[in-house]
């Protein structure tokens, strides 16, 4: 049937290729080169840039869930919000050091992710979608009612953030914020990339493709889902903390359905399950919004809606999906 001896050299090439399939490619340096270049070319947009980086991290955390583990959610803002409020409440109550704020935000959001994940991840499909929505809505209502701590609908005010490392002061132009958010995004991306290339990450892809088979090969599917849900929530929490710290503002919107939905749209525009979808979709969306939405917000949603229909009918898989297909390339891994 086969002739192993004759094929042996080929096998070695295949094994090498497979073993090296997660090696860094030069294209992966592009987003970082672009981000650094933009620092010098768009000096008036550093504040927006910082928001974009923080939101990319948020979208990246969502991609881990939807794109890799196949866990669909419409309540991811819950963890963004928990992180934002955690960092904000700290900063408004005498703990002004930013890095520890990020750590606390990650912990708080991770705990929220673990606790809610352990409950909602028993379900799947539409039920799961509804339950994630409910979790976010509950948290939003909690933030709304607990005015003494959160500021309720007025938002959390009076945050004060120390300079990063005691040296780099957060300035009005967002210069520090730009670098700060970019650096944290870089670390988050490294962690996320490492995760999806690890055997654990591969097993998440297996769960996305066929959970029944994963169980049949002995994978503790439910446990793995809770782990990735917790990690993703922690990353989302860091993202929320970044925005809270760099804008010195947290409002109920941080926990809203709109926030979750918008994030999903950004990720779809860029491409789900491709790690870099967030890096394309988020800047496209946020820059376009910054340009056009101020002029006519209703029209803005019209264009977004039109784009989503177009993507659903023709493109599928967002910008990166289109590029991959043009190059005869792969489905998401």
């Amino acid at each position, binding site marked *: 049937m086969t002739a192993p001896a004759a094929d042996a050299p080929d096998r070695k090439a295949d094994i090498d290729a497979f073993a090296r399939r997660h090696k860094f490619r030069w294209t992966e340096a592009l987003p970082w080169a672009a981000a650094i270049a933009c620092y010098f070319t768009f000096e008036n947009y550093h504040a927006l840039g910082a928001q974009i980086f923080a939101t990319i991290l948020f979208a990246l955390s969502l991609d881990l869930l939807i794109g890799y583990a196949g866990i669909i959610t419409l309540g991811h803002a819950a963890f963004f919000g928990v992180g934002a409020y955690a960092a904000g409440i700290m900063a408004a109550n005498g703990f002004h050091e930013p890095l520890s704020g990020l750590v606390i935000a990650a912990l708080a959001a991770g705990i929220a992710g673990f606790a809610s994940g352990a409950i909602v991840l028993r379900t799947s499909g539409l039920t799961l979608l509804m339950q994630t929505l409910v979790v976010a809505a509950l948290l939003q209502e909690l933030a709304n009612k607990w005015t003494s701590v959160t500021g309720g609908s007025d938002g959390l005010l009076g945050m004060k953030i120390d300079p990063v490392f005691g040296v780099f002061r957060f300035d009005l132009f967002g210069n520090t914020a730009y670098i700060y958010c970019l650096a944290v995004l870089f670390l988050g991306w490294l962690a996320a990339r490492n995760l999806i290339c690890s055997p654990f990450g591969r097993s998440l892809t297996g769960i996305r*493709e066929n959970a029944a088979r994963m169980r049949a090969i002995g994978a503790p599917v439910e446990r793995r889902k809770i782990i990735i849900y917790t990690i993703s929530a922690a990353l989302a929490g860091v993202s929320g903390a970044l925005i809270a710290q760099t804008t010195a503002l947290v409002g109920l919107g941080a926990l809203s359905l709109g926030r979750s939905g918008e994030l999903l749209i950004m990720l779809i525009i860029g491409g789900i399950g491709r790690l870099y979808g967030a890096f394309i979709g988020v800047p496209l969306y946020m820059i376009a919004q910054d340009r056009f939405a101020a002029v006519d917000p209703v029209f803005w949603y019209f264009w977004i809606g039109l784009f989503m229909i177009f993507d659903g009918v023709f493109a599928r898989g967002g910008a990166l999906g289109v590029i991959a297909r043009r190059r005869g390339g792969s489905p998401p891994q």
Partner: protein
Amino acid sequence: MSPAALETKLLCKSFGALAVSSDINFTLERGARHALIGPNGAGKTSFVNLVTGVLKPTSGNIYLGGRDITPLPQALRVKLGLVRTFQISALFKRLTVLENVTLAIAEREGTANDILRPAGHRRAEIEEAFSLLEPLGLANEAMRPVTELAYGRQRMIEIAMALALKPQVLLLDEPAAGVPPGETGAIIDTIERLPAGIAVLFIEHDMELVFRVAKRITVLVQGAVLVEGPPAQIAADPKVREVYLGESHSQ
């Protein structure tokens, strides 16, 4: 005497009024080559689902090597060496053949819990996957996504993934289902070449395959064991003839 590889005692399962398993007492000896046959809807797949933990029995017990595994979750049963394949291929379709097999190996080795190092570092696992694919004639297609392979080839991946788990007890649910008639030979060869120590239970409609491989046959009808015995006895059993003749008349 050492306990049987797999045993069920008074195993029952019903979906509402429909009893898909009724008081099944079944024994799979060590190193067995045992066929489970029966008409469509007899409850053969349901039996595999019960044994592997996909379904919870309404009552009764399941023993693996003498140990009661009835309360254990699916994943733990696999860790104890109880492995199954699917009647309808259940693969990771968009992933490559090689990745399908390495995922199984990573679960067996417990490396799938590793969140830090890249998967490619496990070179030994990749090499092992190739050594599994090679004798099944799948090595040349290892780097291709499963969807690109013909369904008959996908059935071979089903078996490759099960073997990657180094099973003690192997449950094959219609391994040749959907394989074009000319290609079942490769499946039969594979089953015949399985290590003697593995206890194999296979569900099959193809009687040629059943009588060629099985040393023992259990006939399941409407969720209950009709008869069990060596092939010659089953072939001569009037009750079995009635079931199969009755079926062929009605078709």
